[in-house]
């Protein structure tokens, strides 16, 4: 069940990334391709088999997980800037690229690196599951590490939430509004993932559901906009003339 979700998400991200290649070659919105590519890579690194392969190559001390965190940070940053620009969310754009955003990014990065260095990270393990089983201290550090890693994505998406809700209530095309709704849903999922540490182990599968649906929501939301544009360019231009 969880494996289906993981590989399914990877497939969706991969297909969307490949579909962006023609636009990339035409030079349209290159950073959007970067967002999709980084998300695909992030999903790849969160699945057991690919993670183990990559991490073994990097020395088997879970450097791959640290890389994964920064891939997510980079992807979410580009995404935030793009979405804020597109939806004319000047407040969100200032928050993300201004001093506050840089401070949050720096703090989250520092926290992730520091916690990583204090952990006993020997032995590749996707999601650092095996590490938290080592001893209580490591288990606590893994939780802190995860929380620090989720902080920045949550900050970016929450900054975008007001703009998404504004768009939802506007008179823009249905597909654009649906995309805003899906993106807002992704925000909720990312914010919920901050609660991961308090989810009881018996409901551990919820962590996966929340994490992967967050990524799926972001990718689907962006794809919807793209679809809307393609459809609109194809359809004959309808003008609300002076009747």
């Amino acid at each position, binding site marked *: 069940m969880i494996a289906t979700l993981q590989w399914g998400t990877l497939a969706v991200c991969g297909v969307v990334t490949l579909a962006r290649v023609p636009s990339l070659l035409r030079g349209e919105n290159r950073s959007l391709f970067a967002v999709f590519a980084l998300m695909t890579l992030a999903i790849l690194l969160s699945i057991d088999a690919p993670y183990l392969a990559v991490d073994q190559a990097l020395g088997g001390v879970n450097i791959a997980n640290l890389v994964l965190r920064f891939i997510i940070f980079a992807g979410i940053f580009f995404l935030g800037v793009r*979405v804020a*620009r*597109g939806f004319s969310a000047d407040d969100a754009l200032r928050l993300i690229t201004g001093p506050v955003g840089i401070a949050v990014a720096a703090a989250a990065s520092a926290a992730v690196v520091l916690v990583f260095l204090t952990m006993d990270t020997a032995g590749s393990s996707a999601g650092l599951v095996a590490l938290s089983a080592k001893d209580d201290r490591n288990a606590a550090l893994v939780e802190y590490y995860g929380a620090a890693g989720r902080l920045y994505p949550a900050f970016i998406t929450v900054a975008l939430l007001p703009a998404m809700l504004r768009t939802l209530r506007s*008179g*823009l095309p249905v597909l*654009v509004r649906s995309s805003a709704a899906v993106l807002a849903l992704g925000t909720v999922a990312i914010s919920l993932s901050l609660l991961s540490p308090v989810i009881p182990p018996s409901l551990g599968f919820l962590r996966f559901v929340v994490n992967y649906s967050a990524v799926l929501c972001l990718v689907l939301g962006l794809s919807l*906009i793209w679809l*809307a*544009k393609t459809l609109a360019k194809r359809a004959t231009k309808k003008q*609300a003339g002076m009747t």
Partner: protein
Amino acid sequence: MPLPAKAFQLWLHRVAPSASTADICRISGIKRTTLAQQLVRGKVAETTLVSISRALDLSPLAELASFDHYAELAAPPQPPTPAELVSQVATMDLLRAVISRSSPAYGGYGDHGSSMTPALGPAPHATSVRNWVDAIDDGELRHRVSAATGVAPQNYSAQLTANRLSPELAVATARAAGVGFTGGLVATGLITEDEASWTPGAKQAALDALSDGELSALAGERLQALGKTLRRHEQEQAQTEKIWENLG
């Protein structure tokens, strides 16, 4: 509220005893699936009844009145007020009337209702519902309709903005304003001016009866509303373009 399916079927059996559902759909141009769905849900749209009545050469107004909650339509129709008639003149026809009354130097004929002016377009027009409500509104109308029907004022306004109004609300609005029931049904496009027994030329006569001052003020209001709508549309268009430019 749409018509109850049971009453509708009784009516159908009365007006077309020998016709099958397929025949009815064919002559009235209603999709079979649409009618079937309405019957299954137990609620038949008034437009369905109107289409069938037209196809059977019956008066849509009279047939609508044969249903319990439209019984008040059976009374001899109260004719529309001049303000209601003028509200059903399309904005561009109003502007044409302004030009037509201007001096020949500006392309007009300098008189009222010149025979040279092209005939008015049939109701409804692009903003006919809101214009109709504005024409009969004494300032408290929306509150009274809301109180009488339980429809929230913002939902009512949303319908007006979309140039829509359910037949039930159109009748309730007319009742609350104390005007004839046909105005709203024509403004919403449910029935034509002919079917509402409006005198041919009544709209033109009401328009001609406006003084130059009244006509200019009305045309100004309409233009302002049109400008607002177009500007909002342009802004939304620009916003959409921006989203596509950045995220498409």
